[in-house]
């Protein structure tokens, strides 16, 4: 693996599977009375959040704490950034404090990339502008893999633990390891233009062998989307019956100074997932949403709360996946520079 995780493109197929397999094992720890591991004792993880976030910041914090790392939370509000300190000066401060990893969220695309040049530790992108959010893509892939029974944790019904039984497991290399997402059809719907989640997901899901279809109004597709490894369409109703996964994206009203569609109601009617549209989905299909949801806009409340919806699961899986990323980036020896 790379020393940093800035883009989903940093991950090869093997890297991505390693993260998912590691997360599978770590997820089992959350069932235990003692959920803590000593692995990152003495390591410092800085959460550097220049943009508001609840679930991602808490998720990273929980992940680092479960691995016994020391966590320093830094949010732009109430810090020297509010006084005009530059990203570089902030980075040098962190460097002087000896941060082993910096988890950064920033409203400017490319900020984590710049930061990686200034600090010695690992940089993990927790969302930069409309660019990428690789750990969200990893937790989405993890959730899909679990729901479709392809993870290493699934299908091991050998009760009291006939330990050796799993050694001949499913295919990919070492026994008992999970599979990729080959052949699954994932439809991502909504505001692709402002969505770092969409970009990271397209890259990662493609790496893992899934077929990705984007559905959005033409105004909400980024320039050069035709170079992405996915197909594009504008008709949600046609796409639903052939989807294994439907991922609804939040309409990012805070990023919409310009009008990208005539009205919220019209958007909702054409691109929202309501009960009638959910009825068109095949039985196996799951509905995902990276949160926070605009209930009644891109997703109806009844759909969000249905058993097909993985919204709550995604949050729980986020901690396991982020533990895996922190462990794989920080747990081993440091690469020589």
């Amino acid at each position, binding site marked *: 693996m790379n020393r940093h995780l800035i883009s989903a493109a940093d991950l090869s197929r093997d890297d991505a599977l390693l993260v998912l397999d590691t997360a599978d094992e770590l997820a089992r720890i959350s069932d235990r*009375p003692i959920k803590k591991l000593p692995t990152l004792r003495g390591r410092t993880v800085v959460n550097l959040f220049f943009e508001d976030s609840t679930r991602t910041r808490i998720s990273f914090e929980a992940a680092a704490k479960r691995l016994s790392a020391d966590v320093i939370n830094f949010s732009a509000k109430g810090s020297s950034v509010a006084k005009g300190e530059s990203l570089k000066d902030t980075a040098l401060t962190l460097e002087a404090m000896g941060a082993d990893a910096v988890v950064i969220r920033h409203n400017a695309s490319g900020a984590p990339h710049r930061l990686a040049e200034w600090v010695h530790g690992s940089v993990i992108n927790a969302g930069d502008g409309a660019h990428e959010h690789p750990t969200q893509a990893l937790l989405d892939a993890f959730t899909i893999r679990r729901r479709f029974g392809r993870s290493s944790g699934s299908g091991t019904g050998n009760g009291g633990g006939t330990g*050796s039984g799993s050694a001949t497991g499913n295919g990919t290399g070492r026994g008992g390891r999970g599979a990729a997402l080959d052949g699954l059809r994932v439809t991502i719907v909504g505001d692709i233009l402002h969505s770092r989640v969409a970009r990271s997901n397209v890259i990662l899901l493609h790496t893992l062998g899934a077929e990705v279809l984007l559905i959005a109004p033409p105004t909400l597709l980024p320039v050069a989307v035709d170079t992405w490894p996915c197909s594009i369409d504008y008709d949600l109703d046609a796409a639903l019956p052939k989807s294994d996964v439907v991922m609804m994206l939040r309409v990012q009203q805070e990023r919409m100074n310009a009008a990208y569609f005539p009205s919220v109601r019209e958007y909702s009617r054409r691109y929202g997932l309501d009960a009638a549209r959910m009825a068109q989905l095949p039985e196996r299909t799951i509905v995902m949403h990276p949160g926070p949801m605009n209930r009644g806009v891109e997703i109806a409340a009844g759909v969000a709360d249905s058993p097909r919806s993985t919204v709550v699961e995604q949050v729980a899986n986020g901690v396991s996946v982020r533990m895996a990323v922190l462990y794989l980036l920080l*747990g*081993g020896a440091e690469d020589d520079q």
Partner: protein
Amino acid sequence: MGHVHSAGHEPRPGTDATARSVPGQGKIVLERDEIGRALTRIAHEIIERTRGAEQVVLLGIPTRGVPLAGRLAAGIQQVEGHPIPHGSLDITMYRDDLRLRPARTLRRTRVPPDGIDGKIVVLVDDVLYSGRTVRAALDALNDLGRPRAVQLAVLVDRGHRELPIRPDYVGKNLPTSQQELVRVLLTEVDGEDAVLLGTAAGAETTGGRQR
């Protein structure tokens, strides 16, 4: 101390009547039948020392400790007639040398449904060397519950302890130099049963796990 094992104390593996070698892998110091007999003996010793193995839980340390734990459980069940809970205990996250190598892949921890609280946990591993793996396993157990007692069973004890740890059950005491490499092959993992002693030429392959 306290246990004299019939199979132990050969002066040197090379003097074994059965010694033969596998090209590129080293000398065979335990054949399939000898492994079988050693495990049968350990199973009986466990029954004896735990008064019928009623409260025993066998936890194998991946990779090869896991099938060994399964075989011991089967051996004990054959004599005592009741099933012995067994599982696996991954120690990766508890190692003291994590920062000396790239991050390792995690293995499965599988604890029997009744847990380990109040039980006699027998840790099972293939080779006992520095003792660091066992130390990590004790830490890992600590996070899983509070057993009444913890014991240690190993197929091969090759010496060179770096911590105050001793096994309770030993398949074979194998005096080695630190340049040598002990490889345990098991049918469940490697397709055959054997214990090999080689030189550290191909040290990156396996058996160095104990370091």
